[in-house]
C-alpha cells in the first residue's frame, strides 16, 4: 500500500471526506435557497412597482385622455433607470414609450408577461433584453405596457450562483487539505504506536507507547495501554518468579521424597524400616499436596476466579471462630490467643476464603511468636481483632514475636518467601501470600505493621455497602 493510499484509508481522512460532502450539500442548498428567494423578492418588487405605475398612468389617462398619457410617458421614459413604457393603438401602432421593439403579438393579451425586447437606442445592435411587463387595456382601444428590465435580477442571481460555486470549491479544497493534514498527523502517531506494539510483541516487554503530552484521546489511550503493559509486565515477572519458586519449593521436597525412597530401597531391611520410609513418603507427599493446593488457590484468587458465591458476613464472627479454633493450639505452645471483636463488621465476599486467610495469619503468628523463656512470665499474647474503620473492615493479628524488619515486610508477602531465619519452621510459606491474594480479591489489602514489639498483620477489607459508616 502506498503512503498516499494508506493516508486515504485512515479513519480521519474518511471522516473528513464524509463531513465535507455533507457540508458541501448543505452549503449548496443554503445558497440555492438564498438565490431563489432573492429572485422571488425582486420579482415581487417589480410587480408591485409596475402595478402602481399602471394605476397611476390609468388615472392620468382617465383625467387627460391619450394625449396626457403620452405626455407623461414620454416624460417618465426619459428619466435614467426608468421602467419600460409602451402605449400603442389597438392596431399595434406605437404612440409613445422607450421600448424599441417587441416580439409580435406580445400586446395581444392583457396581463403579465415575461418577454424579450430591444431598447430604442440599440434597435439595430440586436441585443435582446429580458423584461417583466404588464399589458393593460385602456378604455378606447389603447394598450398600455409597463415593465421592468430583468437584467438586474439575473445579475444578482448570477453573482449569488458564482459565489456559491466558488465557496463550495473553497470548502472542498480546504476540507481536503485539512483532512489530509489531520489524517497525516494521526497516522504518524498511530504508526508510532503500531511500531511500539510490534517491538513489544517481539518480546521486549519494557517497551512503552509514545505519549505526546497533549492529553488528547490518543494520549489517554496510550497511557492506559502503558498501564496495561506495566501490569502485564508485572504479571509476567510474577509468573517467572512463581515458576522459579515452584521449581524450587516443589522440586526440593520431591527430591527429598525420591532420595528417601531410594535410600529405603537400598538400606531398609526390616518391615519396620520400610514402614517408616513409607510413612515419611506419605507425609512428604501430603505436604506437597498442601503446597500445591495453596498455590492453586492463590492463582485462582489472583485471577479473580475464586470469588465463588459472595455473601454478606460478619468479620467479627470470623475472628471469634478462628480464634476459637486455634486457641488450644496457642495454649499448648505457651501463648495466649484472644479475640477483640465486639461490634459486628459486615463484609461482602467469600466467607470461606476470608476465614482461611485469617486462619493462615493466626497459624503464622502461633508459629513464629515463640513463648518467652521465663516460666513465671505471663505468656505472650496474640490478639485477633475485627473492627469497622470508615469504609474498611480491619481484621488484624498482633503478636509479640520477633516481628519482621521493615525492609523485609514487602518481600514477606511474596509467594514462597520465608525470611531466612524462619526457614527452619514447617509450612509451605504461602500463608501470607494467600492472605494477600484473598485481600486483593476482595478489593482490600494486606499490611504488615510494627506491633512494638512484634508483628501486626492487617487484613483490610472493604466494608459491606449494606452497613453504613457510623
Amino acid at each position, binding site marked *: 500500500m502506498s503512503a498516499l493510499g494508506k493516508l486515504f484509508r485512515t479513519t480521519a481522512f474518511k471522516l473528513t471526506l464524509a463531513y465535507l460532502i455533507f457540508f458541501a450539500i448543505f452549503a449548496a442548498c443554503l445558497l440555492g435557497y438564498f438565490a431563489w428567494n432573492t429572485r422571488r423578492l425582486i420579482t415581487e418588487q417589480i410587480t408591485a412597482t409596475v402595478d402602481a405605475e399602471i394605476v397611476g398612468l390609468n388615472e392620468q389617462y382617465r383625467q387627460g385622455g391619450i394625449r396626457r398619457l403620452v405626455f407623461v410617458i414620454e416624460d417618465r421614459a426619459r428619466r435614467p433607470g426608468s421602467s419600460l413604457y409602451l402605449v400603442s393603438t389597438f392596431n399595434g401602432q406605437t404612440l409613445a414609450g422607450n421600448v424599441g421593439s417587441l416580439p409580435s403579438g406580445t400586446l395581444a393579451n392583457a396581463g403579465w408577461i415575461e418577454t424579450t425586447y430591444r431598447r430604442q437606442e440599440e434597435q439595430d445592435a440586436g441585443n435582446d433584453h429580458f423584461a417583466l411587463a404588464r399589458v393593460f387595456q385602456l378604455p378606447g382601444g389603447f394598450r398600455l405596457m409597463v415593465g421592468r428590465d430583468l437584467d438586474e435580477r439575473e445579475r444578482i442571481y448570477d453573482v449569488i450562483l458564482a459565489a456559491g460555486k466558488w465557496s463550495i470549491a473553497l470548502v472542498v479544497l480546504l476540507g481536503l487539505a485539512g483532512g489530509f493534514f489531520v489524517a497525516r498527523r494521526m497516522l504518524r502517531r498511530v504508526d508510532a504506536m503500531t511500531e511500539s506494539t510490534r517491538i513489544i510483541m517481539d518480546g521486549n516487554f519494557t517497551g512503552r507507547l509514545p505519549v505526546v503530552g497533549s492529553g488528547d484521546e490518543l494520549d489517554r489511550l496510550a497511557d492506559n495501554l502503558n498501564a496495561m503493559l506495566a501490569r502485564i509486565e508485572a504479571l509476567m515477572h510474577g509468573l517467572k518468579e512463581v515458576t522459579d519458586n515452584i521449581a524450587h519449593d516443589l522440586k526440593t521436597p520431591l527430591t527429598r521424597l525420591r532420595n528417601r525412597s531410594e535410600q529405603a530401597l537400598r538400606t531398609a531391611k526390616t518391615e519396620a524400616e520400610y514402614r517408616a520410609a513409607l510413612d515419611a513418603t506419605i507425609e512428604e507427599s501430603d505436604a506437597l499436596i498442601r503446597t500445591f493446593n495453596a498455590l492453586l488457590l492463590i492463582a485462582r484468587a489472583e485471577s479473580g476466579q475464586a470469588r465463588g458465591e459472595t455473601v454478606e458476613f460478619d468479620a467479627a464472627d470470623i475472628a471469634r471462630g478462628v480464634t*476459637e479454633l486455634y486457641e488450644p493450639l496457642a495454649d499448648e505452645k505457651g501463648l495466649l490467643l484472644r479475640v477483640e471483636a465486639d461490634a459486628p463488621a459486615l463484609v461482602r465476599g467469600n466467607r470461606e476464603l476470608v476465614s482461611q486467610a485469617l486462619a493462615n495469619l493466626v*497459624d503464622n503468628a502461633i508459629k513464629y511468636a515463640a513463648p518467652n523463656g521465663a516460666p513465671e512470665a505471663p505468656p505472650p499474647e496474640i490478639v485477633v481483632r475485627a473492627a469497622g474503620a470508615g469504609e474498611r473492615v480491619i481484621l488484624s493479628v498482633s503478636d509479640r514475636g520477633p516481628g519482621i524488619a521493615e525492609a523485609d515486610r514487602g518481600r514477606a508477602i511474596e509467594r514462597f518467601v520465608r525470611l531466612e531465619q524462619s526457614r527452619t519452621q514447617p509450612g509451605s510459606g504461602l500463608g501470607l501470600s494467600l492472605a494477600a491474594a484473598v485481600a486483593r480479591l476482595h478489593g482490600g489489602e494486606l499490611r504488615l505493621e510494627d506491633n512494638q514489639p512484634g508483628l501486626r498483620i492487617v487484613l483490610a477489607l472493604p466494608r459491606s455497602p449494606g452497613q453504613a459508616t457510623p
Partner: protein
Amino acid sequence: MEAVRGWLAQARRPLLLFHEDDIWRIDVVSVPQAPKASSVPKAAAARPFQNPSPLNTSEAEASADHRIAEQTNAPMRLLIIEDDRTAADYLVKAFREVGHVAEHAADGEDGLAQALHGQFDVLIVDRMLPKLDGLTVIGTLRAKNIHTPALILSALGQVDDRVKGLRAGGDDYLAKPYSFAELLARIEVLARRGGGRSEEMTYRVGDLVLDRLSHSVTRGTEELTLQPREFRLLEYLMKHAGQVVTRTMLLENVWDYHFDPQTNVIDVHISRLRSKIDKGFAQPLLHTIRGAGYMVRDNK
C-alpha cells in the same frame, strides 16, 4: 461379625494394605491372631493421659487395631464410577480387602445404568467422566427419586466446586488426592446415615451420656463441664460412635471450615476433650486411629 473375624483370623500375615499410587495409611501394626476386642483396651487404658500431645504416636498406635474389626462389621455394596482404570481397580481392591463389595463403572452412562438397577449402599462418583459427567449422573438419580448416598470425588477441590457438587445432589465431597482412610471413613458414615442415631436425643457410649436437649454430659455419676465447641465435637463423635471420624470431617462438620488449617489444630481440641471425658477413668472411650482419625467407642 463372625465372618469378619474369620476373615481376619485367616489374615495371619501382618496386614499391610497399600497401593503404589495412592495414600494409604491404615496402620495395622499387628493383627491379633484371634482378635478379642478386650485385649487391646488394656494397653490403651494403661497409658496415662497426662499432657496429651496430638503428635504422640505411641498413644495413637495403642489403639490402632480397633478399626479393621470395626469397619468390616457391616459389608457394604459400593459402586465406583471412575474412568481412571488404575484408580478404580485400586479402590475396588482396597474396599474388598476391608470387607466391602465394590462394583466399577468406567463412564457416566454405565454408572447411571448400574446405579439405577443395582442395590448399592453408597455411590462413589468421579466428577469428570466420559459420556455423562458425575453431577449429571447424581442429578438424574435424584430426579428419579433414588437417594442412594453419593460421594463425589474430584480433582477440583475449591470451595465453590464442593458447593456445586452438594447442590447437585451429592452427599459428600472429597478432593483428589485423598487418603483411602479418609474415603473409607466418609463412606461408612454416609452408609449409616439413614439408619443412624441422628434423631436420638441422648447419645450413650459405655458410661458416657450426652444429652442433646439439656446440653449436659455425664460420665458414670460425674457431670462433665464442656465448652460449647467441645460439646459439639463430642456430639459429632458420639453420633458416629464406632465409626472412624477423620480430622477433615470434624473440621467440616463441627467447625464448618473446608480449608486446610495448616497445623493439626483438631488434635489439640481432641486432647482437651479427651482430658475431660477420659482422664481419671479406667476405660478410655475416645480413641486415636492412627493415620485416619478418631473414634468414640466402648471396647467392652
